[in-house]
């Protein structure tokens, strides 16, 4: 199938220019990696009469890992994230999630921020970003930048004069550990269930902070709060993975749909959380 006719195509080279264009064409659609947009345009579920291609915004292609905050620009592709050692050190959960997206070609084009803006239920980036307590940074042509937690951000909630410029999260004192595990119908498929785990370790490897987020469930990724609570205060390496996984499986409400039954999802939550905790150890070299 073929997209509906496109009347105007712009390829701005700065955020300022992009916002000005957006102000002149309020109905315009942003095109980032196109890995969600192009299929929808071809299926004619989205008509983009005016397209603003943001791939030329060089100012948004960087990953900055500073001392207290890390920022991932809106044009950072999954592959850039996967290949960034500093990001892996601070946020293994996010790098794991990026690596689990689709396939090599999709990871070469698709962006982490595009995934959040698209807001798909089965997206892999939102659960990982939520586990990190991340925010999206939004710029507008009329107001100053604002930060919205990924947990409450919905792509549709953007105002007509806004663009997301970054995904960002605080770097906390202590040593981070984490992982992302997903189950699809086949390997590298969309998630039926996924688990994102992010931990912060303090003195003597004591778990000071823990966040577990479950993806693939409706109406969107959910925090498994009592499961995370089980981890706090334990020494990393001595926590009981199965008890934590069982708590997550009990507290998260699951749905029946064409992909899987609610009860099957519960079982997958158990396995995904267990494996994500195990993998958090492996990626930290078993500290």
């Amino acid at each position, binding site marked *: 199938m073929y997209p509906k*006719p496109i009347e105007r195509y712009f*390829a701005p080279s700065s955020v300022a220019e992009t916002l000005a264009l957006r102000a002149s064409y309020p109905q315009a659609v942003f095109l980032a990696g196109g890995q969600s947009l*192009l*299929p929808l345009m*071809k299926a004619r579920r989205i008509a983009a009469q005016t397209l603003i291609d943001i*791939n030329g915004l060089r100012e948004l292609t960087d990953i900055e890992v500073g001392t207290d905050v890390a920022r991932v620009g809106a044009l950072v592709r999954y592959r850039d994230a996967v290949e960034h050692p500093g990001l892996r050190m601070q946020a293994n959960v996010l790098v794991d999630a990026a690596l689990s997206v689709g396939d*090599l070609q999709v990871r070469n084009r698709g962006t982490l921020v595009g995934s959040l803006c698209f807001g798909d239920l089965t997206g892999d980036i939102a659960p990982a970003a939520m586990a990190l307590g991340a925010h999206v940074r939004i710029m507008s042509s009329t107001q100053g930048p604002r930060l919205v937690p990924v947990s409450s951000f919905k792509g549709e909630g953007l105002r007509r004069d806004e663009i997301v410029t970054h995904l960002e999260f605080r770097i906390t004192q202590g040593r981070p550990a984490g992982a992302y595990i997903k189950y699809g119908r086949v*390997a590298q498929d969309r998630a039926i269930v996924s688990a994102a785990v992010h931990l912060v370790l303090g003195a003597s490897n004591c778990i000071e902070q823990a966040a577990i987020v479950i993806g693939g469930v409706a109406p969107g990724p959910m925090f498994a709060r009592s499961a995370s609570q089980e981890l706090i205060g334990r020494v990393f390496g001595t926590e009981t993975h199965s008890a934590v996984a069982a708590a997550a499986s009990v507290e998260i409400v699951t749905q029946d749909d064409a992909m899987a039954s609610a009860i099957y999802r519960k079982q997958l939550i158990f396995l995904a959380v267990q494996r994500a905790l195990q993998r958090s150890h492996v990626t930290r070299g078993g500290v």
Partner: protein
Amino acid sequence: MKQDVAINLNGEIYTGRVELRTVLVDFIREVAGLTGIHVGCGFEGRCGSCTVILEGVAVKSCLMLAIQADGAKVLTPEGLARGGELHPLQTAFRDHHGLQCGFCTPGFLMTLYDYVKDIVARGEVPDEVQIRQAMAGVLCRCTGYVNIVAAVRQTIDRLNAMTPAERQKWFPL
């Protein structure tokens, strides 16, 4: 709306005045007449048969507009052989019978071009699971992938045995 588009395909510039909605794969096949890559899906971008190398990395050319590649360098299967000699990937697919009907083959060649270039540059030797994961974006409904994995192994071995300069010749993009 129509617009002029000029794309460097395998070292040659092709130009055309196309609708803005023209996807890259159609520019390559229908305007430039390079039918090496194929189209295997309707809109979902799953089969990978349309994969090309755009500025050094593998992308599905059905998930981009032609206008987005205006001024870019693109490599298609037609550009893999050098001076009448087949690319090590092509030789390996022939040696191991890595194809049956051949519909998917261009997608594998272009995806694996990106993969083996990267793997050899890092000096890694992947296992079978890693190779299969790297090819997740191309579907083959004939071979069962076994011979394709063998072809990838041979390619990596042959590339590792080359000097950096020899290797460079096979990766113009």
